[in-house]
């Protein structure tokens, strides 16, 4: 019988690891469902609505790329906890649609998995939690180091940057980031 213990232990570790990985995806998916509801309420009431009572962040915008049918609710702050649930709006950047660069970052294997499919020229729609709607057009992409993004928060135009880890299919995380740059082309309130 003891000889069956080692495969069992192995299987158990395997299941735990797999479950742990799957949990990350499950959390990412479930959080978006809850966030969707909180965001709709935010837009309706114009107030900050927390997706669940103990959340340390709140939805600030919905980002959509209609061509590929991708959509996600963006959270305030890009802490690890926030990024587990949705794309995060990096705090020291502008709000989308305001003067300056708004930077949204998300995991390459969950919420921003779709980023690889976004082509230059695609329209990116951002609905803010105050109900204002902005349309951006993707105009360039780049691969940069995380600490040398070249993003200048001081620019005068309204711009949007979506950032995620690069390369998309790598297994471990590295210092490189993929950034997709978009410029505001239209607003309706």
């Amino acid at each position, binding site marked *: 019988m003891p000889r069956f213990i080692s495969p069992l232990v192995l299987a158990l570790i395997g299941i735990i690891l797999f479950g742990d990985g799957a949990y990350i995806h499950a959390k990412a998916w479930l959080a978006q469902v809850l966030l969707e509801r909180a965001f709709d309420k935010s837009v309706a009431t114009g107030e900050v609505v927390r997706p669940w009572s103990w959340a340390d962040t709140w939805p600030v915008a919905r980002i959509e790329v209609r061509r590929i049918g991708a959509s996600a609710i963006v959270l305030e*702050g890009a802490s690890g906890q926030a990024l587990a649930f949705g794309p995060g709006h990096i705090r020291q950047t502008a709000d989308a649609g305001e003067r300056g660069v708004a930077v949204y970052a998300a*995991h390459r294997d969950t919420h921003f998995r779709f980023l690889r499919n976004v082509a230059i020229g695609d329209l990116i729609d951002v609905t803010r939690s105050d109900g204002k709607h902005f349309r951006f057009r993707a105009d360039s992409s780049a691969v940069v180091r995380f600490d040398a993004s070249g993003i200048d928060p001081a620019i005068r135009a309204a711009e949007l940057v979506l950032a995620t880890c690069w390369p998309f299919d790598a297994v471990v995380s590295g210092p490189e980031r993929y950034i997709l740059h978009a410029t505001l082309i239209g607003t309706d309130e």
Partner: protein
Amino acid sequence: MDTYDTTDSNEHPWLGRLIVVGLFLLAQGIAVMLVAFVALLVSLEPGWSATTEQASLLQPGDAKSGTLLLKEDRAYTEAIRLGIDVDITVSGPTLRARVTQIFRNPTKDWAEATYVYPLPAGGAVDSLKMVVGNRVIVGDIKERQQARVIYEEARGAGQKAALTEQERPNIFTNSVANIGPGETVLVQIEYQEPVHQSGNEYSLRLPLVVGPRYNPAPIVQSVDFRNDGSGWGATNSDPVPDRDRISPPVLDPARNAPVNPTSITIRLNAGFALGEVKSPHHNVKVESPDNTTRIVTLADGAVPADRDFELTWKPAAAKAPSVGLFRERVGDTDYLLAFVTPPAAEQATQKPRPREVIFVIDNSGSMGGTSIVQAKASLTYALSRLQPTDRFNVIRFDDTMDVLFPASVAADAERVGEATSFVSALQARGGTEMVPAMRAALTDKLGDAGMVRQVVFLTDGAIGNEQQLFETITAMRGRSRVFMVGIGSAPNTYLMTRAAELGRGAFTHIGSVEQIEERMRGLFAKLENPAVTGLSAKFSEAKADVTPTIIPDVYRDEPLVLAAKLDTLAGSVEIKGRVGDRPWSVTLPLQNAAEGKGLSKLWAKRKIDDAEVARTLREMTPEDSDKAILALALDHQIVTRLTSLVAVDKTPSRPEGEPLKLSELPINLPAGWDFAKVFGERQQVPAQLRERHADARSQSATRRPTPAATDTIRLPKTATSAELKMTAGVILILLAMILFVFNRRQSLLTDAA
């Protein structure tokens, strides 16, 4: 079965061996992989758990770590320097202060500087001047948004500009754009303020530093349903929407020399023969040109702006005058300022009513250092003053809260002893969640109408959500009276005065251990003696616009202060009220009023405060109060929540194309505060403070187009270990299955053998 297996193994003897070898190698491979995997998880956890946000910018709270300090040091040595000069002239009941901020730019870049500084909450800021070289540019009062636009346009056009904005009635921000390399720009603001009087003592308080505030994280706490019954409502949003505007960078005193040297001169014309003049927190030099005048300067020259300056003076006569009446004529309107100290009720005729006293003590991190010592000593003194007929309770709070007794208990020796040891064991740490503590204190469990209910609240008031506290007091005050005791070197005076006003109580400051006994005795005189109630003022001839509209009750030794706008200075004013259960009245003929200075501003400022209070009390809609405030502010040139002063030098100075760097001027930590307690303790001061630091820079892009420190945005880690874990998991499961099959086979083989 047996036969078959045996035959099988006999037929392929090499196969079994091959499987054994193969599986041995595989097992070894797995072992190596497992070890490597565990090692990877352990060593790289922070890196690859993908949750670490890169520390993007220098934040005050991070100054603990060595690497960032280097940055801070550099920022400090290269940054814009600020010097402050304060010149105050006291003329009888009012004072006028001129605060000159000297911005010097020793760097090689064009700079924009912002400085967050405190002023007295009762001060009316009405003048802004910018001095560039030998040119003086006088600022105009404008609606806040408009002023900001003017300032930003000037900044963009390379013109020198200065902007004074109010963040709180006692916190202001000065922004100065386009200070050239090596240049010095002077920004001068002036304000008018009434002199504070308590009993025999007159005083002025000049706050010099904004204590770091605790800003509660946004929590959806309640829902305001619309009145139309539609079922739609709005949830409460961020309690401190402007948190980044009131959180300037704070220097760790252990690592930086104090900044912002301040010199102070006070010309004191009391209007009566002066007795003792002293400053409890600073060494001062007092000159006496004559017996009603003093000139007070700092004995040691300039001091760092790290604590409030306080000056107190007493008349030479044993008793201060109990009545003061002053007038000022502006255009064809007369303004009147009256001080009346009602007589004290005689103890013998008044049997004091039994009291229920709730003591609330703030033991948050901002109270660390000397403040908590003062607060504990004050509370211990207060406990010793309780009578056996009184009932009492003690509440302590930081970001948690404890109520000592389930309900108020009789103040017998045993209970008081218990409370005293509870208090002496308190330590300062954590955040400052003041609202729940105030709620608990105002919850009237006994409901005994025969008793006077008093809440004594000891705090430094270092919170950013003042308005929430005011709303709590308004909603829950019932029959309770709130007495605020401001503790420490730089208490939030606005919070103290407004909370006491809304709570129909009084406030006092304790700035050092030496003041405890005197000030607490004064407070107890107010607590133990009946207030002067039912006060009203009636003008015999003049049509008067009096403020405060509803005159609050006046406590022992406090003067009643009235400001009025009159159409004609004739007849008299009669002030009526009740001292205990006896009627009291006094008539002041207006002709006897002495000439005063800046009374119109004080009247307007007081009217603005009334409108703010009415808004909090929901006696006025926000729209109406905003309209009233705006009209008064524009009329009397006063900086308010809705109006700012802006000055623009039309001569362009910064050449086009030259970049402009922003520097947010750092402030000192208030004296006696413990930096680690406020910023250091991550465990006790969780998300909120971190969040606030992050937020301090968060709107840099929207607020200021050219921040200095930000070269580029650092991007967070954005890969999860999900795929890696799942792949490893699948491999392990497969291996386990192979091993299992192999083992089973082995056992069957063995059995057969």
